[in-house]
């Protein structure tokens, strides 16, 4: 897997398959990026599980917070890591101890740990690094285009509405890759 460039099909396949996402390191602070992503994915129909020992026992947007992955009493499809790269290996170890095992390890925008990725892949898990599932959902559904963002997709098929809400689009949109930008690669990331 080339972790510098992911095909749209790979990302879409993951976001279309997983249903339960445990977000490790999610914040209860409503102005933090992790809170944004948690809320957005919850509104797009994912079963979101907050994992953060600092706020264990509380509820986040109606969802019970757990201290660690192994405390979660239900199967997890994807682990979304909102922690610094140095914690990634131990989070993957914890994920691999679960029964059943999650199918996907996702590290947030700005987070990359190749050792953790190799470890997860060697155990049959799919890995995404340095991406945000909220941004990727927005990009592939075309919702993010409302903010003027280059989705790097093209389509002559109409976009699909998600549910009955207003301004919500579904992921099952037929597209070609469309963007000739490698700005994501050239970009200097915010310090972490």
């Amino acid at each position, binding site marked *: 897997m080339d972790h510098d460039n992911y*095909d*749209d*099909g790979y990302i879409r396949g993951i976001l279309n398959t997983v249903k339960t996402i445990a977000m490790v390191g999610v914040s209860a602070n*409503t*102005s933090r*990026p992790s*809170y*944004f992503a948690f*809320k*957005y994915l919850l*509104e797009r129909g994912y079963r979101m599980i907050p994992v953060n020992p600092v706020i264990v026992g509380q509820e986040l947007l109606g969802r019970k917070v757990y201290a660690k992955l192994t405390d979660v009493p239900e199967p997890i499809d994807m682990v979304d890591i909102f922690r610094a790269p140095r914690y990634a290996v131990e989070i993957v170890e914890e994920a691999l101890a679960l029964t059943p095992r999650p199918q996907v390890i996702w590290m947030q*925008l*700005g987070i990359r740990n190749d050792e953790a990725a190799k470890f997860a892949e060697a155990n049959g898990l799919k890995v995404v690094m340095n991406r*945000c599932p909220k*941004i990727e959902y*927005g990009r592939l559904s*075309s*919702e*993010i*285009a*409302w*903010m*003027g*963002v*280059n*989705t*790097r997709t*093209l*389509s*002559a*098929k*109409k*976009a*699909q*509405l998600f549910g009955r*809400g*207003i*301004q919500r*689009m579904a992921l099952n*949109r037929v597209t*070609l*890759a*469309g*963007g*000739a*930008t*490698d*700005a*994501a690669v*050239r*970009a*200097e*990331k*915010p*310090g972490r």
Partner: protein
Amino acid sequence: MTDRIPGFATLAIHAGAQPDPTTGARATPIYQTTSFVFEDVDHAASLFGLQTFGNIYTRIGNPTNAVLEERVAALEGGTAGLAVASGHAAQIVVMHCLMRPGDELVAAKKLYGGSINQFNHAFKNFGWNVVWAEPDDIGTFERAVSPKTKAIFIESIANPGGVITDIEAVGRIAKSAGVPLIVDNTLATPYLCKPIDYGADVVVHSLTKFLGGHGNSIGGLIVDGGTFNWSREKRYPMLCEPRPEYHGIVLHETFGNFAFAIACRVLALRDLGPALSPFNAFLILTGIETLPLRMQRHCDNALAVAQWLVDRREVAWVSYPGLAGDRYHNLAKKYVPQGAGSVFTFGLKGGYDAGVKLVSNVKLFSHLANIGDTRSLIIHPASTTHRQLTDAQKIQAGAGPDVVRLSIGLEDKEDIIADLEQGLAA
């Protein structure tokens, strides 16, 4: 299978536009509405708090404008775009996100006259100070940079003189100074040159010119290159500090490599107000669909006219970088290999009076202040666009008394040349 990246002509037609999800309309609908209903109060709160993507009010965003934004961002190879009311609005929105009172902007001396006015006068009222540099002497940019510098601003092809700026060289200076390079790419358009490939961090456009291309709509656009680290030096509080307007969100941390475009939208466009009409966005989008075809024809016609002018006895000089002997020809071969655009100047041996006479005599050329129209346009800058500048500034800007500026249109080149011929002879 690796994703196939479509070519420029495909992006010019398709990027950002897909059949409407409810009606199936294939052309981009004109969403001529001020506002968008909320599903419930929670949805409204998510939208206002930037927690979800969507439309609230056309001053902040509009689905027709959004197609235009993504289209131009895709053509430029940027991460995101923001459409605004004019090219001038694009510049003030960008600077609002970068500058505080007392800060400095380093800008090339050879710019569109309106930009020179905006920087010298309007920006001064905000306490933003411009320091001018000479695009023909790259070292002047380096010497102009000070600890107060927050940005460097150049035009890829400068208006009106047909000056090609060495974008890559200025980009290196911007990088070592730790400030973003902003490139006005209006005259080249991304068909001829993509400044982000050469180190630009932000690209601005007057859509009024070649992108719209038909002389019917004023508009501007900002493209975020996604390349600048706004957090590194903590010098750009709009991007790297918690924003009180949005309950403490840090935009760069939240939006990553399209944070600048978001800052321009939610901090500058929202609060300064220069929104683009969706109807203008629709007309400009229609223009962009044929940009590659039009731009090539503009360039081919311009080269033919420039070559014809060189041999005329009334003409003292022709400044068109597409000409083999031109001082910018080597830079043109590097930055605009498909053609040097269609706006250029030439000098009349008869000086100011001969310039005034020519613009009065032409019959096919329109005497007006715009450029980048299907129609061929002519102006005598010293008596019009650059009139407010001092004589020294006029010459610096390439708009001395003998100078005539042409914007060559898409008519038959024989007709364009015949009109100039009768205009010079009359």
